[in-house]
């Protein structure tokens, strides 16, 4: 042995890094490369036919989008009710749109603007995923920070409250989802029963998971509840690393509670907040379990997410080539978002 203690030797570095590198290659890099390879083929999970090379077909199908305008039916002109032709009718006039289906549309008077795609469900899923992240990020991080400040007080029984708030995190997401789908049930769920009792109206209570406008928000609410305990602990650690002298000094200088929060607590938590935001975003992008258990992507695709879409294409429809393409493209998007967040954080630190 030539290397001495305290010196970096190539062998020492190698032997320490080797297990981690080995695992990284076997379980991260290799599957990624295999998936990247599969995106150029029509590989099926089960098929007697050989896998063929299809070039960029999968990418073309995934990423083709177009916007077109549709005029309301002239036959109906003069009537109150503006009627638009069905998609099949409006497509027949445009042979170039053969594989396209509508993902979203906006009506402005007698003109309809349609965002059409060859895989409209992917477009919807992508939008839903970002919408979910936008909903859950402030909700979950805000709740976590509030809870952390709450259980950081010198109150009696705070250990009990910490345990209570942390309990959902150690509950399996599948179990939590099942329990919540019972709570949110339209006709016999606890939440609607409560609403009915409070409002004294037997017809009250929205269709939480059955209404396309509410389903994603309901899932976001439930997810924030389930996940906030973990971020609370991270915030708690951050809060306890702020030296108490700073608070004392602030108090001596006459700062009130709000000023102490803004000028001592928030700057002290800067790194913690960046970590929590980045990790919560990544977790939010991976939304799958809740959707799979609670809504199956419905109603009307309002809760379909990219991961759910990839699993559905890859495994349920056994289209591994296309499923891999979705996963890889989404990986790039998430990588981009994380890089952006990191860049902003670094910029913020330099300021």
């Amino acid at each position, binding site marked *: 042995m030539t290397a001495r203690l305290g010196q970096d030797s190539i062998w020492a570095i190698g032997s320490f890094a080797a297990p981690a590198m080995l695992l990284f290659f076997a379980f991260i890099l290799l599957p990624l490369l295999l998936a990247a390879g599969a995106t150029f083929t*029509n590989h*099926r*999970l*089960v*098929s*007697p*036919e050989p896998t063929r090379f299809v070039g960029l077909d999968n990418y073309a199908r995934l990423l083709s989008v177009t916007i077109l305008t549709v005029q309301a039916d002239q036959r109906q002109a003069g009537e109150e009710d503006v009627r638009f032709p*069905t*998609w*099949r009718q409006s497509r027949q006039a445009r042979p170039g749109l*053969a*594989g396209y*289906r509508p993902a979203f549309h906006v009506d402005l008077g007698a003109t309809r603007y349609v965002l059409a795609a060859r895989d409209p469900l992917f477009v919807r899923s992508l939008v839903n995923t970002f919408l979910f992240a936008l909903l859950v990020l402030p909700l979950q991080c805000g709740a976590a920070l509030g809870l952390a400040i709450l259980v950081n007080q010198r109150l009696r029984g705070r250990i009990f409250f910490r345990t209570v708030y942390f309990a959902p995190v150690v509950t399996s997401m599948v179990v939590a989802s099942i329990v919540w789908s*019972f709570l949110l*049930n*339209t*006709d*016999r*769920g606890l939440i609607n029963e409560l609403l009915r009792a409070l409002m004294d109206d037997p017809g009250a209570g929205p*269709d939480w*998971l*059955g209404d*396309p406008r509410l389903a994603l928000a309901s899932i976001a609410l439930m997810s924030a509840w389930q996940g906030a305990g973990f971020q609370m602990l991270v915030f708690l650690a951050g809060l306890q690393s702020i030296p108490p002298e700073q608070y004392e000094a602030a108090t001596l200088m006459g700062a009130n509670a709000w000023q102490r929060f803004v000028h001592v607590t928030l700057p002290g938590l800067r790194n913690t907040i960046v970590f929590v935001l980045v990790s919560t975003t990544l977790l939010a992008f991976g939304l799958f379990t809740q959707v799979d258990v609670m809504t*199956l992507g*419905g*109603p*009307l*695709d309002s809760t379909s997410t990219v991961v759910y879409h990839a699993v559905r294409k890859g*495994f*349920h*429809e056994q*289209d591994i080539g296309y499923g891999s393409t979705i996963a890889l493209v989404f990986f790039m998007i998430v990588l981009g978002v994380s890089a952006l967040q990191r860049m902003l954080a670094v910029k913020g630190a330099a300021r």
Partner: protein
Amino acid sequence: MSRLAPGALLAALAAWTAMYSTPGAAAPLEIRMWRHDTGDAEMAAGRAAVARFNASQEKWKVVVEAMPQSTYTSAITAASMVRQLPCVLAIDQPTVPNFAWAGHVRALDSLLPRDAVARLLPGGRGTYRGKLYSVGQFDVTLALFSRRAQLAALGVRIATIDRPYSAREFHAILVKAKQSKIARFPFDVNGRSRAEWPSYAFLPWLQSAGADLIDRSSYLRADGVLNGTSALGVARYYASLYAEGLVERNPADERAFEQGRALFHYTGSWKSDDYDRLFGSDLVVMPPPDFGHGPRIGAASWQWAISRDCRHPEGAAALLAHLIGTGEMAAMSRATGHVPVSREAAALTEHYREGGARRIYFEFAQRYALPRPATPAYPAMSAVFEKTLSDLRAGKDPAEALDEAVEAIEHDIARNNGYGFSSANQVGAAQ
């Protein structure tokens, strides 16, 4: 425990050697069999049938391995990819063509005795492109359950085989039941069940109206079949049931009918045991509503197939021939209450013989049953149809929903080169 005398031990050893060295009495060859986990009665009946087979001859010894139903089909797929399939497999009949196309299972025509197969009703066979790939012991049938007293109180007639409810009449009854506050949601259609149930239950409605999932002459075209006028009528009907609050969109449990919260339950004959016990003579079993071409129900349940990798197909075939024998079929029906799939076996059961208490299910199977489309595309089509129904439940425009289903199905078929029904070029344009 007493010690064996050396003499006795020697004698036993001699006897043992003698037994296994006699030519023609070699140790039986093992045949592995996979099945999905079902209810206790059915599992016990299946085990007893295999035990009788093992006892009836000395050449083969069948070993049964059960696995959970939820992951069963993916387990078969995985085992097939690494060529670890057992000899005999239980398969849900509509997926048999897919397994045949994928090469998991082999044709049975030359392996099974012709007369035993000829006795089977359509609900006992699984075919693909004219060849037999699976055989079954029993079937289940769809039925409309209700209660005599409640129908009488509402002033509504009981539907019979000769005069089923028409779809329009049935809708009027549901509206009446809702208005008279008998039930908040008068019609229970197993809204919590996923996977194959939606297709199994509501594809017959399409067929009863003269539509289908796919054109069965080519198995390549869904356009005009799944989105034609008659299909659209059924889709609108189905959507209206939810829009008008006649069916609960997202029920909390599956006990609405037995707890008296629903007037009708549209479900399978597997419920008949429970409901007989619960309601006795108050229970009425009726055919599903007629959408114009007479009521329809799905044919065929779980069946047995022999895998491609099986090294002793003649042993596996002997087991299958044993299972579809008239006596075994009747025994299975007696133990589980399932509908036998041959007239001879039905005659041997107390329930299903002419005049038996449950003969009506057998009549349903004979008159109404229509197999699901025998194409490898079926699992994909069923998944698409399930999604279409769930979109209709949520209020999607029926015409758009069916158009979308047609495109998804034709796209899947094109992507799989017609699943062996034709070349890719013919349907490539359908994309």
